[in-house]
C-alpha cells in the first residue's frame, strides 16, 4: 500500500494488508506473530517481513506484502479479494462461497 506518513491505524492495516491485530499479535489464517510492544507500523512491518520503501524525493512510502514465512501464502485461506468490474461495480470474492472458484489472471498485453 502507498503511505504518505509512517503511521496507520490497525483497522486500516487489517483492511489493506489482511493481518488482524489481536492480543496475541498480528494474525492471518492460523498464524499469529507476537508483537512485543503492540501495533506500530514500522516494527510490525519488520516482524512480518513487509518491506517499507521510501521515495525520498516525493515523500511517499510503499509497504510491501509479508514475507514472514518465505512464501507468497501464509495460509491456504483465500483472502477476500475486492476488485471492480468494467462498470466500476465492486465485487467481493467471498460472495462466491459455496461454489468452486477458478481465478484466471490475464492482461491486454
Amino acid at each position, binding site marked *: *500500500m*502507498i503511505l504518505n506518513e509512517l503511521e496507520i491505524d490497525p483497522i486500516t492495516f487489517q483492511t489493506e494488508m*489482511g493481518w488482524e491485530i489481536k492480543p496475541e499479535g498480528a494474525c492471518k489464517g492460523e498464524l499469529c506473530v507476537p508483537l512485543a510492544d503492540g501495533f506500530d507500523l514500522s516494527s510490525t512491518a519488520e516482524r512480518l*517481513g*513487509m*518491506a*517499507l*520503501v521510501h*521515495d525520498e*524525493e*516525493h515523500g*511517499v512510502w*510503499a*509497504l*510491501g*506484502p*509479508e*514475507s514472514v*514465512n*518465505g*512464501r*507468497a*501464502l*501464509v*495460509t*491456504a*485461506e*483465500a*483472502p477476500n*479479494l475486492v*476488485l*471492480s*468490474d*468494467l462498470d*466500476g461495480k465492486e*465485487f467481493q*470474492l*467471498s460472495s*462466491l*462461497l*459455496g*461454489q*468452486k*472458484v*477458478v*481465478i*484466471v*489472471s*490475464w*492482461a*491486454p*498485453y
Partner: protein
Amino acid sequence: MREELHPLGVEIVTVSLELSEPEASRPFIEAAAPEHPSLLDPTHKLDTLFGVVNIPNVIWIDEKGIIVRPAEPGWPGPTQYPESFAKRMAERVAEAAKAAAEAPGEGGPKPPDLMKLLRTGQDRDSYPDAIRDWARNGASSQYAMTPDQVVDASQPRPLEKSKGAAHFELANHFWQIGERDAAIRHFNECHRLQPENWTYKRQAWSLVGNERAGGGEVGRFSQGPLPGEEADWPFDTNFNDDVAELEPGQYYPKTIE
C-alpha cells in the same frame, strides 16, 4: 468452458492486470461476453495476495474459500479474442517474421523461436482436464492439494521480493500522476528484485511499448524498443532479450503432470 463447468458448481473469475484505464481491457472482455465476474486489478493485487507472477496464472479455491491450488500457469479453456485484434496480431507476427528475415533486430512482436519457448513447461492442452477432474471429484481429486501443500507450493518470497512489490506500487503510483521518471526508476528496481515476475515486467514494457508502437489494438503487445530505437528504451530489460535467456520450461513452469 464456463458453460461446461458452471453446472458442476465451478465459477470462473477473470482478472485483468492492467494499470491504465479500464478501456484497455474492455474489447477483450466484451469479445468474451462473459456471464462470470470479469474484474480489473490495476495494482496487480493478485501478485501480492496470491503469488501470481505471470499471465495467465490460475488459482483454484474450494466452496469453503480454501485455496486448493496456488497460482500457477493455467489455461481453463480457449480464449476468445476480439476479431479485429486477432487479425491485426496475425498481421504483425507476419510483418515481424518478414523483417527478421531481412534485417534481424530487437523489439517488435515475438520472433517464431520465442513463441516455441513459450509453449514449453506447463501443458496448455491438458489443463482443462485437470479442472474438470476437480469439478467432478472435489477434495478427492488428485489435483487438489492440502492447505500445507498449498502454502509450500506458493511462490517463494524472501524480503527482497516484498521490496520489489513495494517498488511496483510506487511505479504505478507515479505513472498514474504523470511522474514518468520516478515511475521508470521504480519499475527498473522492481524488475531487478523480482526478475521472475512477468506481470511486473510486461506491464511496464507495454506502457512505453504502446506509445512507441502508436497505440491501437496491439500496441500494448510491443514490449521492447522498435528496431533502431534501442538506445531510447528507458528500461533495463525488454521482452525479447529477457525471454531469450530462459531455459525451456522456465516461462510457464510445469506444476501439473
